[in-house]
């Protein structure tokens, strides 16, 4: 093995990435070549020094605790009471039971989606940089999303409505990219999420709901799923929903 080849393979040797046979051949050369041995030593020293210097930052205890709590697994919901009934139930009731299970499953899936959207909203409010495009102008915010998400949407004119647009950012839900728009109403902040509607989305049996005291309204329009989350009243959320529906029809 020549010195030139040694130098070319030095990184792989120091990183323990050489196959065993080649590493053995490498070490035979090192024992007989002071220049290559010196180079290998320096490379190893640099790697070790980088390892020590690179482990520089430690997460604050408060952050670690917060993360541990947020990653704690959610306790599975108790099975529906109907599921605990004796096996020997009439056939007619079995059909009812199946229907009940389907409803509960869909309800749980919907709750999970609600919870994820609430998480996204809360995370945004807690962030020092809640939006990536900062503008009150819908003609600035909407074009910003071009090329960042696989669809487009209309935003309403807000003059004399009390609502103000703060900006937006790209978010992900169930592996799908979408838009999150942040609005303000009397110092309350509301998130409008827009995703492509898909089969994988839960059947949104109710158009309005509540999660951790946040109010929501959701609807599907022209292949897009809109969800509004905020801590204002249902009627305020509905007013914003109507503005968005009207803009989408234009």
């Amino acid at each position, binding site marked *: 093995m020549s010195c030139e080849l040694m130098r070319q393979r030095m*990184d*792989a040797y120091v*990183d*323990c*990435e*050489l*196959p*065993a046979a080649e590493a053995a051949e490498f070490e035979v050369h090192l024992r007989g070549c002071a220049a290559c041995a*010196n180079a290998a030593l*320096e*490379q190893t*020293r*640099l*790697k070790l*020094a*980088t*390892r*020590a*210097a*690179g*482990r*520089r*930052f*430690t*997460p*604050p205890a408060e*952050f*670690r605790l*917060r*993360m*541990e709590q*947020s*990653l*704690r*697994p959610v306790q599975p919901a108790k099975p529906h009471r109907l599921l605990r009934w004796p096996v020997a139930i009439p056939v007619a009731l079995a059909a009812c039971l199946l229907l009940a299970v389907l409803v509960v499953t869909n309800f749980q899936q919907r709750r999970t989606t609600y919870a*994820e959207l609430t*998480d996204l909203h809360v*995370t945004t409010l807690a*962030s*020092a*940089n809640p939006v*990536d495009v900062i503008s009150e102008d819908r003609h600035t915010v909407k074009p910003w999303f071009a090329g*960042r998400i696989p669809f487009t949407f209309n935003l309403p004119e807000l003059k004399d409505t009390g609502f103000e647009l703060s900006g937006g950012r*790209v978010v*992900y*839900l*169930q*592996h799908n990219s979408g838009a999150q728009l942040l609005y303000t109403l009397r110092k309350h902040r509301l998130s409008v999420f827009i995703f492509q509607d898909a089969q994988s989305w839960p059947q949104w049996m109710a158009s309005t709901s509540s999660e951790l005291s946040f109010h929501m309204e959701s609807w599907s329009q022209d292949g897009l799923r809109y969800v509004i989350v905020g801590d204002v009243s249902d009627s305020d959320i509905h007013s914003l929903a109507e503005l968005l529906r009207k803009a989408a029809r234009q």
Partner: protein
Amino acid sequence: MDEPQTDTGTFEELALPLLARLYNLARWLTQDAGEAEELVQESCMKALRGFGSYRQGTNFSAWIYRIMRNTFLTSRTGLKYSTISLDDEENDVPEPAATGTPESALLASFDQQAIQSALEGLPLHFREVILLCDVEEMSYQAISEALAIPIGTVMSRLSRARRAMRTQLAGAPNSPRPRSASR
């Protein structure tokens, strides 16, 4: 060569032990404490939601780092990097200054602070490959998965990154400058 790493378990079991490492990497990526916390938090939430797509038995740290890197690259700070072409990354590495000083003498004088400054001064694509290889001790295969690049590119990028590190440590006047201002 190390055997491929295989990880199985619940999301909590796999992710919590990596929290400190993810935070460290996030700090190096964002160079800001607040942004690093947000990046780790958002990445973990995405990873938790997408845990169904993780193939049990594969390298979990490479999988979650890939999510964090993609999250970073779509963030306000990361977007600044997204337009960087890596085609001309060879140009990022100046040859060491021809001072006639043996490289060994230059390297002998480095200390931890010098290494940290050199790392901070590297362009993002060099910094992250050094961190994953030398700090996280990931295999070339795992780095390839985490960065979504071929192993050959991992090797060449690592080689150039180390050359850039040496140049910075040598204090060459034409050392590569960071692509964004550190905060």
